């Protein structure tokens, strides 16, 4: 029997929340609803009071879809009190402490392993899977530009942008000159591997290469563990049977377009 599942999201258009919203045994809560009665005071630890209407989080599988607080009501309250956003994540952590399992790590980007900078992902994954390639890159320090003489066909990217590799600028204004990040565009054919638990499905945005499926269970397992993500989307490029790992994203941006997307999400829910 599948574990009761709760999706906590912070985006009204959240794809996973939309796909699972009408499934029996799955509840969907917006973060604003969860945090409505949380007690946030000047220079105090947040007290996470839960309303009776919130479904029991205890022993549930939680898809903790909380990556960004800036547009949430709790985010506004934190700013009003000048409180570090880590305190909201810590409060969430205490609320979720008795859950059966969490889909993602807790914390803001860079602190949660589910949201690591690209070059940290590459370092960790290439240390785990022998023979996999990762993109060549150069990373500046502060306002200092890095040496990019060793790079060919490179683009400036945001170190936080997992899935945009076509050369269009995805760099936020404040990232242009601050810790500038340059990456060689990977060669070959892109493959997206969407996974939840051990279940995975491949999609091919630009043509169908001959794929050795045998490589993917190991890749999924490594990403699940290294990036503390029970669900995610892995982008690899395949060229001459060699895979280049580009990113593992927790956002599941493409799952809505997958024919079997909803099934994939349900198959990954852990059993009791």
């Amino acid at each position, binding site marked *: 029997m599948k574990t009761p599942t709760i999706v906590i999201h912070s985006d009204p258009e959240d794809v996973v929340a939309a796909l699972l919203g009408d499934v029996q045994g799955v509840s969907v809560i917006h973060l604003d609803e969860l945090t409505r*009665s949380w007690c946030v005071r*000047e*220079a*105090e*630890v*947040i*007290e*996470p*009071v*839960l*309303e*009776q209407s919130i479904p029991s989080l205890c022993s549930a599988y939680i898809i903790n879809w909380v990556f960004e607080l800036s547009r949430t009501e709790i985010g506004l309250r934190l700013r009003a*009190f*000048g*409180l*570090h*956003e*880590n*305190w909201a*994540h*810590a*409060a969430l*952590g*205490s*609320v979720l*402490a008795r859950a059966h399992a969490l889909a993602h*790590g*807790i*914390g*803001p*980007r*860079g*602190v*949660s*392993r589910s949201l690591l*900078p690209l*070059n*940290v992902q590459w*370092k*960790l994954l290439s240390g785990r899977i022998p023979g996999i390639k990762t993109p060549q890159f150069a*990373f500046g*320090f*502060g306002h*200092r530009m890095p040496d990019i003489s060793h790079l060919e066909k490179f683009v400036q990217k945001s*170190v936080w942008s997992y899935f945009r590799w076509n050369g269009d600028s995805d760099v936020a204004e404040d990232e242009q000159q601050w*810790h500038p990040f340059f990456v060689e565009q990977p060669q070959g054919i892109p493959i997206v591997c969407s996974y939840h638990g051990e279940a995975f499905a491949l999609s091919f945005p630009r043509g169908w290469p001959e794929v050795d499926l045998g490589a993917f269970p190991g890749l999924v397992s490594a990403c699940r563990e290294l990036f503390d993500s029970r669900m995610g989307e892995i982008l690899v490029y395949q060229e001459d049977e060699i895979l280049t790992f580009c990113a593992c994203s927790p956002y599941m941006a493409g799952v809505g377009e997958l024919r079997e997307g909803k099934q994939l999400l349900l198959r990954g829910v852990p059993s009791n």
Partner: protein
Amino acid sequence: MRTSIEDLRRAIEDPHRTVDVCSVLLDAWLEVTPRRLSEALSRFRDKRIENQGRVENFEKTFKQLDPAARRRLLGSPWVSGFMDDPDGVSHEDPDGRSVSTIEALHLAATAEFLVAPINDEMGKLHQGRGVESPLGEWVLRRHESGFEKVERAKVGGVIALDVDSGLARRNEPESGTFCNPFMSISSEELVVIQEKLEAAIGLVDEATPHLGLLIRTFTRRVLVRKSIQPGDQVSPLNLGSEYRPIHAGCIRILNVHRPEMTVDLCAEAILHESIHSYLSAYEEVHGKFMSGAIRVRPVSPWSGNFIPNHSLAHAVFVYYAIHQLLGILVDIGAGIGEEAGKRMKRRLMHVAGGFCIERKISTLFVLESPASPQLMAVVNEIQEKIRTEYSQRMPKYKLENVA
């Protein structure tokens, strides 16, 4: 006796240990520094024939110094500045001429000889070069009638306040503080700066006297850079501070003349940078905590910024010390007013917030080779201590009662 990483932590948290740890470490540092200097000089001498005379001149002067003068010189930024970049430029003299690091080192050594009136040979050597003591406590100013020895103001009784030396004017594009062009500080502003820094160190002494001692042991000069005028708009970047090991024992603080740089912020800045100086002294003696490579960098749980692994290791000790200071100041009130009290409570929560994350801080490092297990153990213990303190205040979530 050898300082361990555990000792570094103990000196911050246990006032009974601070004197021992600081004096053992400073002695070890003063023992290792002349050896390092001698090695650097010998490499420099062998590099080019013309370097030979320059090194010999310095060594001749150095040999004539008494032990106290040698220690003052060794503790000065001229020694670390030379060792960091033996072929480089130290600063510009008052006439805008570049002074090389070996020249600056020699000038500092000869300054230890100076007696008034200045003798001819010294006068020639120092002509226009701006003569000052190695640690910056005094400076010789030239007048029409001759030279005058001017004592610089001191903070906390021993730390020289330097707003105008060649070092204080230095331009460093890669620095967070000295990338801003130097602006001269008026005598009225100097009074404000001095009073504020004095009050700041007074706050540290009142709340955590052992940290006041640590500051005085590892900080010998405070360089204040003015980068904005009184009417200019202030951004957080204008209120920064910095420590660079290239200038051992010198901490840098921006725009202390501005009201936004409050006494409590100054206290935090002095302690913050002095802890860097303390940790750097340890690293000089016992080796770097870890590589300073910057190709892959972790994210600071305090600022969210990409920082080198090495800086993250420093940050844990720095914020541990600041947490001690602010925690006590907030408790005792310290007569600092409501506004400052509120600001310090917020800062305290910010500092604690960086420790109160789900992951162990030791797992945030992204290193090529494993970090020292002792260092990682201390990092995790510090985090755990603060996390436990706050988790006791963190109520387990509760369900709202139905009315």
